[in-house]
């Protein structure tokens, strides 16, 4: 089964946030199609170290699609063109011999490049700190059946909660908008009784933080949902708009 392919990589190199970046081209020979995309980059980095060159910095952690750390913009798509996978779940068997692969960092004003393909995504953490939590005192642990939640609502909240905060939505968006992320984080709580108490303040504070950090305005292109590795739906954005506008109109 194992096949190997030769590929050419166009990779964005940038020394630090302030230095101007540029593309560099690398030829890689005999890459096993069993390798994952990140393993392929590991092989390239080993090669660079052997040649006493600076290895390429890229983010990764769990390598199984749950942490949201890996963040590569591959041939025009965040996490590659395959739907509903993260970069770490992309494999070299999806590529052909002779392919040219362009790898760029997320490019967004609110996600500045730290080095090479690594960007600072703490903007999403700051939005979470502005309201993405439940602060009511819930007391002792209640019985699981004490608060009945209809199954469709529980499912919808679970779908929203599947967001891993990877940042692909803002990276994919022509407007650099973080609305899919923020709406998923608002929805996962707004849908449930425990989260409703603070729903209005949460929507206002998280949107205010999002605007302050320099994310763009959503024009409903839908690129975010199309590229989201977790298939988070655009209907979350409608819910966020509703929550936010109702909260503001009540003030």
């Amino acid at each position, binding site marked *: 089964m194992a096949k190997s392919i030769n590929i050419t990589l*166009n990779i964005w190199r940038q020394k630090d946030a302030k230095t101007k*970046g540029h*593309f560099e081209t690398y030829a890689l020979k005999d890459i096993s199609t069993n390798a994952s995309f990140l393993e392929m980059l590991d092989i390239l980095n080993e090669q660079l170290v052997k040649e006493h060159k600076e290895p390429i910095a890229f983010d990764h952690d769990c390598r199984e699609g749950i942490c949201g750390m890996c963040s590569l*913009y591959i*041939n*025009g*798509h965040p996490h590659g*063109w395959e739907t509903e996978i993260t970069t770490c779940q992309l494999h070299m068997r999806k590529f052909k011999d002779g392919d040219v692969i*362009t790898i*760029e960092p997320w*490019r*967004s*004003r*609110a*996600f*500045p*490049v730290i080095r090479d393909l690594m960007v600072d995504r703490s903007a999403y953490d700051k939005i979470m700190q502005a309201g993405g939590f439940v602060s009511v005192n819930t007391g002792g642990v209640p019985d699981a059946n004490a608060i009945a939640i209809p199954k469709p609502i529980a499912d*919808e909240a679970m779908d929203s909660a599947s967001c891993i905060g990877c940042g692909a939505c803002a990276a*994919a968006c*022509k*407007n*650099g*908008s973080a609305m899919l992320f923020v709406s998923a984080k608002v929805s996962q709580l707004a849908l449930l009784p425990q989260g409703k108490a603070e729903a209005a303040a949460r929507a206002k504070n998280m*949107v*205010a933080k*999002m*605007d302050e950090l*320099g*994310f*763009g*305005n*959503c*024009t*409903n*292109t*839908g*690129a975010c*949902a*199309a*590229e989201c590795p977790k298939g988070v*739906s*655009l*209907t979350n*954005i*409608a*819910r*966020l*708009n*509703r*929550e*936010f*506008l*109702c909260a*503001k*109109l009540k*003030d």
Partner: protein
Amino acid sequence: MSFFLINSSIGRKLVMSISGMFLILFLTFHMCMNLVAIISPEGYNTVCEFLGANWYALVGTAILAGGFIIHILFGLLLSIENRRARGNDRYAVTARPKTVEWASQNMLALGIVILALLGLHLYHFWAKMQFVELQAMAGVEVDSNLLANATNGYGLIEQTFSSPVVVALYLVMLCALWFHISHGFWSSLQSMGLSNSVWLKRIQVISMVYATLLVAGFAVVVIFFFVKSIL
């Protein structure tokens, strides 16, 4: 409270969506009135007289102009902010996922095409009708011929759409309008928060159908009078 319409991204989008919907509503009335021209010349000129330089028609025109100005200013503001939000380095390779409509990423360009041809349209009709009447009322010397024709909207249509160049330009404008509205209609509802997992697909389909009916209604009149002029 009211500042959120300017200070927050979602507030600005609300202004955009309400002004856009208002323009769609106006276009719907406009299209219905145009269709009268095909059915009855006298009927059409009665409508023209009714919407001439009367106080209510003038108030309507002012509100309409206001709607356009708000829509255009906010559209420009949002587009500039969105470009800035993308950062200084642009992607070298970009691809449009299959589910993303082309129109949704080119609303500003489509809007500018509409605006340019709207100028031509105002020159063709408004400048020769309501504006001439207004000038006359204000005591400005106007050609008596012009004034006599100011309420003859039907004649003006026949004359304007006998030129193939003008017809082609109007059809370009209608194409741009179709793209703008086929995305704008559902986008506007989404911006107002009027969408959910059941309705998202539905409003997207309604958007396509509505844009098609609206634009077809306009196009029929343009083509009808062009064909009539060459027969």
